[in-house]
């Protein structure tokens, strides 16, 4: 027992790593460090998303929002739930707390409709981000910041066609997310080949892995499109285990995706710049409170799609590493 302990301690001390680890994290923290750049009163802004627990994409959105909050002297609150009912209750809690601004996602618009109306009635400005470009204006939000999921899907369909793919798989990791359906439907519209949907349980990676692997073994797919960065990694593993030669492509970016693009594991990624969604939402609320400014002119402010391939991978890997891309 003590021998094992000694060996572990020894290995920890001796085996320094020059890449990754805690030190890389500290570098990242330094980049997010900052002081308020304005002297407006300390407003409170709350953000409620449909994120599941521990989702890397939403972590980037959140760090963008936190960075803007620091600059704008804003107190930033955050809550999330992947159940529409819960999400609407969280928004209600923030209305009860009389926050100065609300940022919400409309992945399940019907569940959010009533509570967004309540926020407006209570005089709280609302900005929608990420999902809900179609409903944002109707619900009375100031602006919508995000990517149009159908347009993003169509971009993927075009890219797949351009790459000469015939039969592709669209992996949906959040059942019931309308935006995810729109992505796959958009891709299906412009893709000249055949695109099938595969539903997986996004919070259960082994399930995702085995589901994709089984699907790849069962048919001659030559492309896979995952809807989130962590799932691209898993799809690459599934592809290797299944002995398939399908090209793996993905929505969203991460350090691993950037590396995958660079070393050829991945074909292309469609980025929607999550950092920008969080950052802009907080900043626009500040602008609205300070100067009654509204961006977008009633149209969604698009942060994507941006198709990223091997060419841009190296540059983006660095930013992904510090958790802002």
């Amino acid at each position, binding site marked *: 027992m003590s021998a094992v302990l000694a060996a572990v301690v020894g290995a920890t001390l001796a085996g320094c790593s020059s890449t990754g680890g805690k030190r890389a994290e500290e570098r990242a923290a330094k980049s997010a460090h900052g002081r308020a750049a304005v002297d407006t009163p300390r407003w409170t802004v709350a953000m409620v998303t449909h994120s599941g627990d521990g989702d890397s994409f939403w972590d980037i959105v959140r760090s963008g929002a936190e960075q803007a909050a620091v600059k704008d002297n804003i107190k930033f609150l955050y809550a999330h739930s992947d159940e529409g009912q819960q999400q609407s209750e969280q928004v209600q809690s923030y209305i009860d*707390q009389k926050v100065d601004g609300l940022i919400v996602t409309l992945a399940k618009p019907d569940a959010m409709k009533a509570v967004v109306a309540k926020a407006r009635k209570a005089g709280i400005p609302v900005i929608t981000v990420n999902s809900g470009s179609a409903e944002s204006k109707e619900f009375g939000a100031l602006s919508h910041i995000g990517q149009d999921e159908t347009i993003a899907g169509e971009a993927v369909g075009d890219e797949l066609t351009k790459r000469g793919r015939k039969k592709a798989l669209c992996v949906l990791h959040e059942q019931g997310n309308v935006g995810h359906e729109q992505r796959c439907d958009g891709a299906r519209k412009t893709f000249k080949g055949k695109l099938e949907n595969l539903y997986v349980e996004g919070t259960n990676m082994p399930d995702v892995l085995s589901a994709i692997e089984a699907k790849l073994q069962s048919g001659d797919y030559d492309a896979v499109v995952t809807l989130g960065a962590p799932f691209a990694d898993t799809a690459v593993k599934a592809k290797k285990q299944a002995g398939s030669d399908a090209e793996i492509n993905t929505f969203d970016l991460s350090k691993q995706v950037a590396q995958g693009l660079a070393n050829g594991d991945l074909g292309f990624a469609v980025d929607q710049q999550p950092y920008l969604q969080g950052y802009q939402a907080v900043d626009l609320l500040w602008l609205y409170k300070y100067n009654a400014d509204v961006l977008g002119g009633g149209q969604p402010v698009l942060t994507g799609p941006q198709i990223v391939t091997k060419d841009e991978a190296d540059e983006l890997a660095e930013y992904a590493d510090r958790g802002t891309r």
Partner: protein
Amino acid sequence: MSSSLARPTTPADPPEPDERLLHRSTLRSLLGRPELGAVVGAVAVFVFFSVVADSFLQLSSLSTVLYASSTIGIMAVPVALLMIGGEFDLSTGVAVTTSALVSSMFSYQMTANVWVGVGVSLLTSLAIGFFNGIVLVRTGLPSFIITLATFLMLTGMNLGFTKLISGKVSTKTIGDMEGFESARKIFASQHTIGDVNIKVTILWWLGLVAVATWILLRTRAGNWIFAAGGNAHAARAVGVPVARTKIALYMGTGFGAWVLGQHLLFSFDTVQSGEGVGNELLYIIAAVIGGCLMTGGYGSAIGAAVGALIFGMTNKGIVYAQWDADWFKFFLGAMLLLATLLNAWVRKRAEASK
């Protein structure tokens, strides 16, 4: 709020003859109630969040908390009865979604009055409960396995049928159909009194608690439930219809799922097919916090309601206290553990003082 919940059940009728001749003071019988510990736990949680969260004590916040509690409580009550009867139901979470989906899709596809869908949904929900119950009593397998299977089948059917019929993962809106407004009044209306929104689910919740308590404490069926959960063989030997009781209890959870399912449908117009997974555990947790034994034969409906209230207060209190969302589940778990420990401690003290 929570202490006033306990009052209606205090057995106040004159002591009956035979072995129950022994006189027990009101205080004594209060101390013997299964929900006592939960009430103390609820008061503790309430006081805690009143202190740490500034906006917790506002009327509008309290109505949000009550609403959140009611959406768990409506199911926790029939689940508690089932657990007193000695069985589990893991299919309740998705059964709620099933109930909403059936109602919505039937009305839409048949272009029928919304109330027709609501009726069909009631029959379906009761049928799911009946299925669970009949398979249980016929096979004698553990309810854990049977309802786990039902849970998985319903999860698959929810998505499968919805995609098949609507072509999407959510249903189409029925907000513009005949009967919608009246159904919304029954299942999802809210009444604003001053600054406070009282959602109708709170009334459903209280109503279900009252009915369940009456059944448990005042009817023959109530005795059957305790007997079936305490010792099914002995109960059968003295002539308790154990099989019928258990089937009825499962149909009771079906009824709860129907009420909550209709609430979700009529507050949001459309239903997401993938939701509800995991909520079954919340209902069981609420019942257990409220004093139900995992082994059956002991518990109360009021306790389950108080358990739901503890859960609702904790769930929303964390947001009002503005604690970091990353730690949400940890705080939730820790608060529940503390409330339950307090509950167990109080109950032990109460039993010792008898």
